[in-house]
C-alpha cells in the first residue's frame, strides 16, 4: 500500500526497488504494488478560500489549491503509474528517468498539503502564537526571542533565488532549524516539518506583485500555531498521520 507517509519515505530513499530486491521477493513485491497502488487525491482545505483574507486573497487560494496543487497530484499519479510499469517490466533506466518527476510532483503534493494545514484564519485562536507554548519556548531558547526568529525566518524566505520554500524544522529531539528548499523539494531528511511557507510567485503574485517582502510580513498573521505545536511535539510520522486524516 502506498500512502503519503510512505511516499515521504520513498522520496527520502530515492532508490529503485529492483536494486534492493531480487528474484521471487522482487516479483511478489511488484505484483503486490501493482495491485494496490493508491491514487492520490487533492485534500480539502480546512477553511474557505477567502478565510485567509486580507492576507492571502481568495483568488490566490482558489488557484493555488484547485489548479496548482491539483496539477501536482495529477502528475504524481501519472508518474507513479509509469513507475510501477517500469518496476514490473524490470526497466531500471525507466525507473531512474521517472525519479525527478516523482520528486517534483510528490514534493509538490507533500509541501502544499503541509502548508494548508499550517495556515489558519487570522481571527482564529489557532493563529495566535499562544497556541504553541512549548514551541515558543524552544524558539526563544534557539533564537533569543520570538522576534529574532521571525526576522531570521523572513530573511531566509527573501533570500531564496527562484522558486522554493522556507521551513522551520525540528531536528533530533528538540533542535530547531530554518531550512530552505528549491522548487518542490520536500523536507525528507528525517526532520519534522513544523511549518512551511511557499515562496513560489504563484503563492503571492496576484495580490503582492513583486512586493514579496509584504507577503512575508503578512504570512505571520495566518500561521497555524496549533498545528505547529502539534508537529513540534510529535514525530515525522505524526505530521503525516495528521495529513492522512484529511486525505
Amino acid at each position, binding site marked *: 500500500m502506498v500512502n503519503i507517509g510512505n511516499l515521504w519515505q520513498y522520496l527520502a530513499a530515492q532508490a529503485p526497488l529492483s536494486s534492493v530486491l531480487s528474484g521471487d521477493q522482487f516479483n511478489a513485491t511488484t505484483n503486490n504494488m501493482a495491485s494496490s497502488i493508491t491514487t492520490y487525491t487533492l485534500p480539502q482545505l480546512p477553511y474557505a478560500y477567502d478565510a485567509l483574507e486580507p492576507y492571502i486573497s481568495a483568488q490566490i487560494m482558489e*488557484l493555488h489549491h484547485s*489548479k*496548482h496543487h491539483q*496539477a501536482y497530484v495529477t502528475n504524481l499519479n501519472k508518474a507513479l503509474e509509469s513507475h510501477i510499469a517500469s518496476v514490473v517490466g524490470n526497466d531500471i533506466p525507466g525507473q531512474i528517468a521517472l525519479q*525527478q518527476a516523482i520528486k*517534483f510532483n510528490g514534493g509538490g503534493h507533500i509541501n502544499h498539503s503541509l502548508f494548508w494545514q499550517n495556515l489558519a484564519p487570522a481571527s482564529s485562536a489557532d493563529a495566535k502564537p499562544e497556541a504553541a507554548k512549548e514551541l515558543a519556548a524552544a524558539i526563544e531558547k534557539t533564537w533569543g526571542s520570538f522576534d529574532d526568529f521571525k526576522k531570521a525566518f523572513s530573511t531566509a524566505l527573501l533570500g531564496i*533565488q*527562484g*522558486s*522554493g520554500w522556507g521551513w522551520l524544522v525540528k531536528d533530533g529531539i528538540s533542535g530547531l532549524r530554518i531550512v530552505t528548499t*528549491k*522548487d*518542490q523539494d520536500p523536507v525528507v531528511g528525517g526532520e519534522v516539518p513544523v511549518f512551511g511557507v511557499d515562496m*513560489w*510567485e*504563484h503563492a503571492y*503574485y*496576484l495580490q503582492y*506583485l*513583486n512586493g514579496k517582502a509584504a507577503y512575508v510580513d503578512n504570512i505571520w498573521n495566518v500561521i497555524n500555531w496549533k498545528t505547529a505545536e502539534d508537529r513540534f511535539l510529535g514525530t515525522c510520522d505524526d505530521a503525516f498521520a495528521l495529513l492522512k486524516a484529511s486525505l
Partner: protein
Amino acid sequence: MSSTLLRTTPALRGALRASGAVKPAAGLATSFVRGKATLPDLSYDYGALEPYISSKIMELHHSKHHQTYVTGLNSALESIAKAEEAKDFAKAATFAPLLNFHGGGHLNHTLFWENLAPASREGGGEPDGALKSAISSDFGSFDSFRKQMNTSLAGIQGSGWAWLVKDKTSGTLGIVTRANQDPVSGNFEPLLGIDAWEHAYYLQYENRKAEYFDAIWNVVNWKTVAQRFGKA
C-alpha cells in the same frame, strides 16, 4: 556582449572603451572608478506587446524585476570589490551565488527584451534566410522547433528560462533550459530566450502557462535572433 549591459556616464565611456574592461583605471590605487550596470530602456512601449503580454506585466517585469537584478548586481560587485581591496579573497568568493543570480538576471532580461518586438512591427512570423535553413536542418522544421521549445518550457520545474542556442564548436542549434537566473554560457551562444518565471505571465495567464508559451511566438523578434545567429 550587448553594450546596453554596462552603461556608464559619458565621461567614463571613453576610458572603458580604451581599456576594454569594466575596471578602467589601473593607476587608481584605492578608489575604483567602475561602470555601474543600469536598466536598459525598452525599444518599445510597455503596451506594445499586447494582447500577448499585457502592459502591466511588461511594466512590472522591466521597471521592478529587472531593476532589482541590476541593483543586486551592482551591490554584489561592490561587495566583491571591497573584499578584494581588503585582500579577503575567501569573502569575495562567497558573493559568487549573488553575482550569478543578479548578473544572470540582468543579462537574461536584457537579451529577452531585445528578442521580443510588437506583433505590428518585427514581432512574430517565421525566420528566413540562413537561420531558417539552420532551424529546418537541426529541428526538422520550424513547427517542430517551436513544439520542442514549448515542451522544454513546460518541463521547467520551478523558475527558469529556455533558450535557442548555437553550439560554438559544432555550429549546430539546440535548446537548453536554465534554472532560476543561471545564464547561458560556455560553449553555447544564446540566440532566443523565453522567460518561464511565473512573474513573466501570471497576471495575465495565471496557472495556464501553456497559453503563454503559445502566445509569445507572436512577439518573437526574428531579426534580432538572426543577427545573433550571424555573429555567433
